[in-house]
């Protein structure tokens, strides 16, 4: 039985009410509170605000050169990590898809890294990478490689590698689902037309799963852009501010410098920018999918 479009829309709305109420409480209220904080002169000693500050907090936040440093680092980190995560995930989808069709339980094993909280991941790597107690430097030494993965020349690559190791499985599971949703008949038809192996993957599978690639790229970029936990545990944002992401910057502004108004204003600006990007990004994906 099919419903007419008007009834379908009404039913969809009913389902959306629950989500909207949940979001209003969980995100809407804190966002409104933060908006109010950002226009007030708030301190830890007076969280209700000592007076209306107008756009002063926004002016201070955007005028701080440290912000642009942190923003630059987050953008670079987000871009590089996303490219690696999606690239490796795609490679894994193409190479492991036949195996995972026969042994689906292997997918669960591959998902293990995303089960670990990022902060715990940071603590684990503090132990694993330590020159004196860590197993990775130990094995590398045995093999004749004397590399210190947390040294000043390697630290930037190491924190990105940890992000990639943890979150590639997330990109992989989304892309794998998209790949597995393609009908088998398609493969048969392609084979009859002579498209097999790499040709089939690149010319047929890749375009068909491209909406999933766009979405996962988008999600991973936003997530990597706001990286905090493992970098904070491993380096504290240092040395200097070499690994200070925008989230670490805001955290330090809030807790260490007690600049509550400035940090909240900055968070709000980032929220608006992220939502705008997300809106247009998703619109683009939907348009591509429809066309």
């Amino acid at each position, binding site marked *: 039985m099919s419903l007419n479009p008007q009834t379908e829309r009404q039913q969809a709305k009913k389902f959306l009410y629950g989500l909207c109420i949940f979001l209003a409480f969980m995100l809407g209220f804190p966002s409104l509170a933060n908006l109010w904080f950002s226009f007030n002169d708030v301190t830890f000693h007076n969280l209700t605000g000592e007076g209306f500050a107008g756009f002063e907090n926004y002016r201070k936040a955007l005028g701080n050169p440290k912000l642009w440093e942190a923003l630059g680092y987050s953008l670079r980190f987000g871009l590089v990590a996303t490219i690696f995560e999606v690239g490796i995930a795609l490679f894994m989808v193409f190479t492991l898809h036949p195996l995972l069709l026969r042994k689906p339980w292997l997918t669960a094993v591959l998902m293990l890294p995303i089960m670990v909280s990022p902060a715990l991941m940071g603590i684990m790597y*503090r132990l694993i990478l330590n020159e004196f107690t860590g197993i990775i430097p130990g094995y590398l030494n045995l093999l004749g490689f004397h590399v210190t993965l947390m*040294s000043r020349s390697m630290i930037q690559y190491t924190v990105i590698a940890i992000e990639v190791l943890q979150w590639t499985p997330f990109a992989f599971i989304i892309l794998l689902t998209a790949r597995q949703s393609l009908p088998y008949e398609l493969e048969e038809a392609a084979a009859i037309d002579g498209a097999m192996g790499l040709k089939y993957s690149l010319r047929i599978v890749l375009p068909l799963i491209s909406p999933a690639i766009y979405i996962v790229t988008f999600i991973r970029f936003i997530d990597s852009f706001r990286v905090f936990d493992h970098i904070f545990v491993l380096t504290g944002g*240092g040395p*200097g501010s070499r690994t200070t992401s925008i989230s670490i910057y805001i955290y330090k502004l809030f807790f260490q410098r007690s600049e509550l108004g400035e940090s909240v204003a900055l968070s709000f600006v980032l929220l608006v920018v992220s939502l705008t990007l997300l809106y247009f990004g998703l619109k683009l994906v939907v348009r591509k999918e429809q066309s």
Partner: protein
Amino acid sequence: MNKIKALINSLVAGLFATLTLLSISASANITVLAWPGGPAEEALRKVVDHYNKTSDSKAELLYFSRDNFFDKMLADVAAGSKDFDVMLTATYSLGKYAPFMTPINDMVNEEVLSTFSQGAIDTQTYQGTVYGLPTDLSLHFLYYREDLINELLSNSSWQATYAKISAEYLGKEMKPKAAEDWNWDDFIASALFFTRSINPDSPVPYGTVLQMKNLLFNIMIWQGTAASYGGDWRDADGNITIDSDAYRRGLKIYKDLFDAEATPADSLSYEYAEANAAFGSGKVAFYTQWSAAYADFIKPGEYPAIEGNFTITNQPAGDMGPKTHFHSLGLGINANSDKQDEARAFLSFLGTNEAMSMFLKEGGQPPVTDPIMNAHAGDRLDMLMMAEHTAKYGKVMNGGTEGGAFAIYANMAENFTAYWAGDMDVDTAIVNVTKFLEAEFAK
């Protein structure tokens, strides 16, 4: 109908009785938010167990994780949390937390002063008001391998190499000295001598291990270098004095040792735990570390590579002699708490000779008076040295207990680690920190 009425009445009465009992038991219990981990936690648990057995009021311990402990506590007290009645205090952040705490000047009576010295009470005092009782004193020692330093003092071949290395790196031929007589040049020369990449015959890979992570607590360790050359945050008139020879010399010590690879290449991510792991592995000759590490190192079987083979002494000297940062952690009363009397009762107990003697015997490091220390410290060399070192070498920076002290340490950590890593020159780092201090003290 009467039966139903009786049933309702008995249910209501039962409900009231239960609520009354619950409220009594709730008011009799207080929650103590204390510093987690290490010997201090183990010792405090035993003291609290004893309190609960001997007192009408009961105390329950609450521990956050050590990471960002103070940020979490600040968020809680600023939001008016009553989840804990007794809370942690620290010398360097008293100014920040004072508005959220209950003054306890009236509790500092004769008994308390027979337990803690006035100097120790002063470390929990901000602008003349006492906010806590000091339960743990922290300062820094030089930890060193006795076998290695003794060999250096007696082996002529080692001494010749030592002289050669010191001439090459420090521009003067030096002779090894006993560790307690070291100045910072001796520290540097010895670190280079015991570094295998510089001296292939060194029995250990690294001379020292420096804690250089962008972390404010690491600056507390480092600032013993600057303080020993007379460095301070401000002079008596309140002028910022970071731009000084003392600070430059102190910063250069870490920079030179790091560049010479006398400390592990990943020292820029090291803090307390990593440095202990390095020294405890037996691959490092000496290092400066918090006093708390001693209690861990002497536990049988924990660090076999150095067991019975290391000792502690004062930090190396600068022109002003050896200096060490020191502070105390303590316990005070959350001003938001509804159980002020019970919290005061608990603190009164902590201020007794009995409670602190027990805390000391169980592994804590309380800054107690000499009679208690002599009676209970036993073979705890760290405890016996702490009071003496605090008095002789202890240094609290001018402004080090103000509300902005935490932010100042964090700013130093960011700028100085950037210099050590080669991301910033020393002049820029010093100018940045000076500007920050000016802004913080102007608030």
